[in-house]
């Protein structure tokens, strides 16, 4: 694949290959608007307080905070696995609060990808089927699910291990499988919860490099971490403490070289590792 030079900013609005069109004027992929989440108790525990966060198409955001800061709660809310106590949350413009549970589930099936610290792979199933299960609830027939899983595995560099079981893979490979599963549905946003938390330093670096590469290819990714070093390397860093966002570097300027990939022609697939001119992250 080749890249054309960045044309007009309008092109960045085209959600290439994600099945969701965002209008150029900037309906954010994710819009957290004055969201509070409190848990019942005496007194109620406020995990998040009036949080505002807009994440646009193609952004790579690192959300950093210490344990108990509310970053996991934020991820759960952004992932629609939990609902805010007050405030509004929109995914690709859809207001989650007004949707029925089944519709929210379908939203997750088609527009949100998750990457977890513990991978959560099915040990009895082959790598290919683990990834294909990412589309199970999107109503796509098995044959297509497997075809798309194959593409996603190529993207993360595991096309050779389609028929291996997760137990036969290293930690880094397992996380790559999990990333492929998150990407297989070409979601509007990928949420990663401490994606390197269970990996050693070097492997963690290679996973972060992969995330970078996916971002360059156009994916919108939010990485939750407690590690400032990881957040620092993201184009946008959001710091959260005690349920408040205390710092937000804001959307990266379009001049950021790593955003250029977004300006490429609409494609159905993000760049593969081999054919892409993106920089290879040293691990």
């Amino acid at each position: 694949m080749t890249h054309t030079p960045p044309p007009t900013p309008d092109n960045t609005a085209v959600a290439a290959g994600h099945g969701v069109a965002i209008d150029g004027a900037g309906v954010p992929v994710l819009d957290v608007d004055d969201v509070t989440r409190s848990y019942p108790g005496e007194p109620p525990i406020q995990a998040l307080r009036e949080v505002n966060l807009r994440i646009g198409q193609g952004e790579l955001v690192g959300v950093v905070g210490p344990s108990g800061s509310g970053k996991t709660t934020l991820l759960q809310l952004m992932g629609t696995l939990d609902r805010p106590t007050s405030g509004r949350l929109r995914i690709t413009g859809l207001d989650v609060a007004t949707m029925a549970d089944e519709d929210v589930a379908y939203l997750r099936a088609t527009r949100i990808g998750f990457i977890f610290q513990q991978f959560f792979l099915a040990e009895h199933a082959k790598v290919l089927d683990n990834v294909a299960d990412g589309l199970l609830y999107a109503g796509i027939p098995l044959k297509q699910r497997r075809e798309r899983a194959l593409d996603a595995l190529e993207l993360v560099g595991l096309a050779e291990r389609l028929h291996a079981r997760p137990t036969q893979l290293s930690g880094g490979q397992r996380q790559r499988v999990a990333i492929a599963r998150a990407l297989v549905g070409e979601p509007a946003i990928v949420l990663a919860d401490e994606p390197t938390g269970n990996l050693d330093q070097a492997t963690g670096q290679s996973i972060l490099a992969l995330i970078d590469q996916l971002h360059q290819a156009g994916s919108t990714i939010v990485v939750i971490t407690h590690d400032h070093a990881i957040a620092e390397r993201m184009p946008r860093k959001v710091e959260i403490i005690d349920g408040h966002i205390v710092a937000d570097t804001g959307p990266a300027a379009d001049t950021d070289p790593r955003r250029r990939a977004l300006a490429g022609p609409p494609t159905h697939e993000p760049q593969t590792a081999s054919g892409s001119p993106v920089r290879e992250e040293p691990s």
Partner: protein
Amino acid sequence: MTATATLSRRRLQLSDLTRLSTVGLRTRKLRTGLSALGIAIGVGAIVAVLGLSASSQSGLLAEINQLGTNLLTVSNGQSFGGGTAELPTSAPGMIGRISGVQQAQSTGAVAGANAFRTPYIPSVDTNGLTVQAASLDLLPVLAATVAQGHYLNAGTAQEPVVVLGAAAAELLGIDRIYPGERIWVGGQWFYVAGILKPAVLASAIDSSVLIGYPAAQKYLGFDGHPSIVYLRAKNDRVNVVDNLLAATANPENPSGVSVSQPSSALVAQADAKSALNGLFLGLGAVALLVGAVGVANIMIISVLERRSEIGLRRALGATKGHIRTQFLAEAVLLGLLGGTVGVALGAAATAVYAHTKHWATVIPTEAWAGGIAASLIIGAIAGLIPALRAARLSPTQALWSV
């Protein structure tokens, strides 16, 4: 395409549901086998009990049919005075002349005569044996056969010669006939000519010592009155003949005659459920109940163990309904597995036992179909609560509190 495009709800395809619901069963085979075992034992016991009962019944009915259902017996009943109403000596002959009667034969109890192995046995030890005068063509009418030796013939019927019923031979301790074998009947020696096989249609013959009419009159002072007339009627005339018998046998006192059809009594007996059946069915039901509790237990454990899988599936877009359906289907499959194995076990047990008894193997439809249906329902009931719990599990708790 716009951002407000309607989100459609998707149901799982059957093939996907099948794959999902077997995941837990395939990955934990030993546990699956053990928890299905309870249901298998219950269904197996029920199928085996019903199958054995049906097979033995069909075996008995086949035997009865082979022996013929057209045998009727006429026996002396009670007189008004309370004593025995003797059948006239002419009764067998008269009955034989009824249209539709193929053959009539008789036996007559010889009053006061008892049979012993030797003269030295105390006279009170009669073993419950009866001495009966018997007509010469009795065996074909009873569909009875000789196990050893010969039945009475025109010659031996005149002489002190006996033929022993199967039970009588056993009680007297005679299992083989030697030349010169004899027993002590009514104060003198009688030679043993033959031993009969058990007579299914006339069990009274089994415990009888049979001698010829002439010999009974000559040696034992028998009065010649028959006590039971056995007759075969044409199959289509059985009822007609039945109605005429009492009056024909004893025209002076028809009410002192009792008429019966031994095969119908046996059929009724075959139809009657064994009391043990109820016991074993009850045990089977208890095993099923225990099996159901086992399945429910295993499913609840499975839900607890698979919290992260449930959470992941929710994150991948599964609705509560998807999760519920998956676990419910798994429990139903577990029940079905147990039920199928149980039916196979029960059928195998029935087949083996029926084979040793030379019966046809009969597994009633309600037994195997009922067994499968019961196991499905049990699986569904046992899986209901675990499935509801799985569906209720909040995805955040399932994924973040491992």
